[in-house]
């Protein structure tokens, strides 16, 4: 790996991330669609907890879950389907003839998507915390950052893998996205502690990195209630997430290579109607 090769690929990551970092924030409609609307769902759950006189930490759980839905939606509807759209618009063939690793394109999409979504998720989180007057424990900042970063790498690694798979399956993949929206909200415990589903259901849902990431973040933001409802300890969840990072990034590379090979053999990479 030469310095030139590395630099070229780093520039490619920056180039592909740019439209999401800059372009996607040019239209302020995102404030309504990506922040206000999710807050309404969060508010509904929060009022249910309030009505039941549940501990305020549980409202914090919901706000955190509501903020994390932005990442899951970004994975399903943007990251996973992006290569398919790039094919439809003709960008994909231009990416493919560029002298760079295809992983740089996916990494650029992931970095851009992560930035773009973090902005939305943070807005939801801050407004939710302020509106409902919820306190957050910030006594373990390093662990918090580690869990968040590792969760995001694993999650976007999964998104990179989905991107190749969606491209291979074409329009059919949209049904998968539909099937993976609300069911994953439930299975991953976006609005309640995943432990309540029982060990095996929670263990199965842990293949989605956000399940363990959310559980670990709840333990860190709410050491008492979070630990009381924890699925696994935050340390173990962090370790599993680190393994998931490697697994998903490896799988995304393999699926991308397979997709490219298949595309070159069948023409499906470049022929829009196939």
């Amino acid at each position, binding site marked *: 790996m030469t310095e030139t090769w590395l630099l070229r690929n780093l*520039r490619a990551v920056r180039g592909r991330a*740019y439209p999401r970092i800059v*372009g996607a924030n040019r239209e302020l409609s995102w404030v309504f669609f990506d922040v206000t609307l999710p807050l309404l769902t969060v508010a509904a759950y929060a009022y249910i907890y309030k009505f039941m006189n549940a501990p305020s930490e549980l409202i914090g759980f919901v706000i955190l879950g509501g903020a994390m839905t932005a990442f899951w939606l970004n994975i399903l509807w943007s990251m996973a389907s992006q290569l398919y759209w790039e094919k439809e618009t003709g960008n994909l063939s231009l990416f493919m*003839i560029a*002298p760079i690793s295809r992983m740089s394109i996916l990494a650029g999409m992931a970095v851009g998507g992560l930035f773009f979504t973090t902005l939305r998720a943070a807005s939801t989180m801050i407004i939710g915390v302020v509106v409902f007057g919820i306190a957050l424990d910030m006594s373990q900042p390093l662990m918090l950052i580690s869990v968040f970063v590792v969760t995001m790498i694993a999650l976007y690694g999964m998104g990179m893998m989905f991107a190749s798979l969606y491209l291979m399956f074409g329009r059919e993949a949209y049904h998968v996205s539909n099937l993976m929206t609300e069911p994953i909200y439930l299975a991953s415990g976006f609005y309640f502690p995943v432990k309540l589903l029982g060990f095996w259901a929670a263990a199965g849902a842990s293949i989605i990195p956000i399940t363990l990431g959310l559980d670990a973040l709840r333990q860190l933001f709410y050491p008492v209630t979070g630990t009381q409802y924890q699925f696994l300890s935050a340390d173990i969840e962090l370790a599993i997430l680190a393994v998931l990072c490697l697994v998903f990034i490896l799988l995304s590379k393999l699926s991308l290579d397979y997709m490219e090979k298949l595309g*070159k053999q069948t023409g499906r990479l470049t022929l829009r109607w196939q």
Partner: protein
Amino acid sequence: MQPAVETKSLTRVFHPKKKKEGKSVTALDSVDLTVERGELFGLLGPNGAGKTTMLKILSTLLLPTKGTAHVAGYDVAKDFYEVRRRINMISGGEISGYGLLTVRENLWMFSQFYGIRNEIAFRRIDEMLELFGMTDKKNEKVRTLSTGQRQKMNVIRGFVTDPEIIFLDEPTLGLDVNASRVIRSYIVDWVRKKDANRTVLLTTHYMAEADELCDRIAIIDGGKILACDTPKNLKKLVRMNRTFKLDVTLMQDKSSLGSIKGVENFTFIDDSEKELTSLKFVLTDESAVSDIVSLVLGRGAKILSLQKTEPTLEDVFIKMVGRGFE
């Protein structure tokens, strides 16, 4: 130095996903082709002739089914990374890029996939925007551009990476005269730049474009190269024959015009608005003209004009393929 492009027995067959979806299609059939460095080479053929498939293989997007293809001396199937470092591609009607980005941002983004440093990328982008008369559009969002402006941006995208070899797939498709002229002029200037050793492989189905731009042309149809030479030499292939253009009042029955003795090829265009039929004949024997005239008059049409024309690439194409593009 290795040729810019060299193919040997290049074959590409597309198989349907499922057998019941139809037959396999042979898009390229044992194509042998050499394009030398510094050439502006044209692939001329109708839709479905195999031009785009050829470019997709040369640009590493498709694998050959059989045979080999080398670009700048590198095998497109094995050394695709080396090939990609040396090429770029532009397609007509392309809608690449992101509508929310400005023209300058879009061009910069694509330059990043070739690892071009910012200062070099922006300098080239600004120079090319100036050349294409697009400076005033550089900060406009791409989605606000007209078709012509968008295609000019696409052309800049392809050339801004300063490739050794560029593949142009119908680059002026659907553009107005002015936009086409600007693009053609740039292509010629780019490839002729002294000591640059640049090569263009252009596909088009515009005969005049191929005639105007190309050093050599290969006529392709049904996946086979039917002829390959300079436009001048290709026209010599039909020089022995005579081409006559006959404008007559709208003529419904044109049967048997093509079967008159001495007529090698016959095409026509009806213009019902002008109530005019343009007949075009390639003759092996000029005496056939009197038989044609008699037949036309016998069908009740009036002759408006009769012209003997120099052979064009279209005539060459008709001779080679046995039919026109339409």
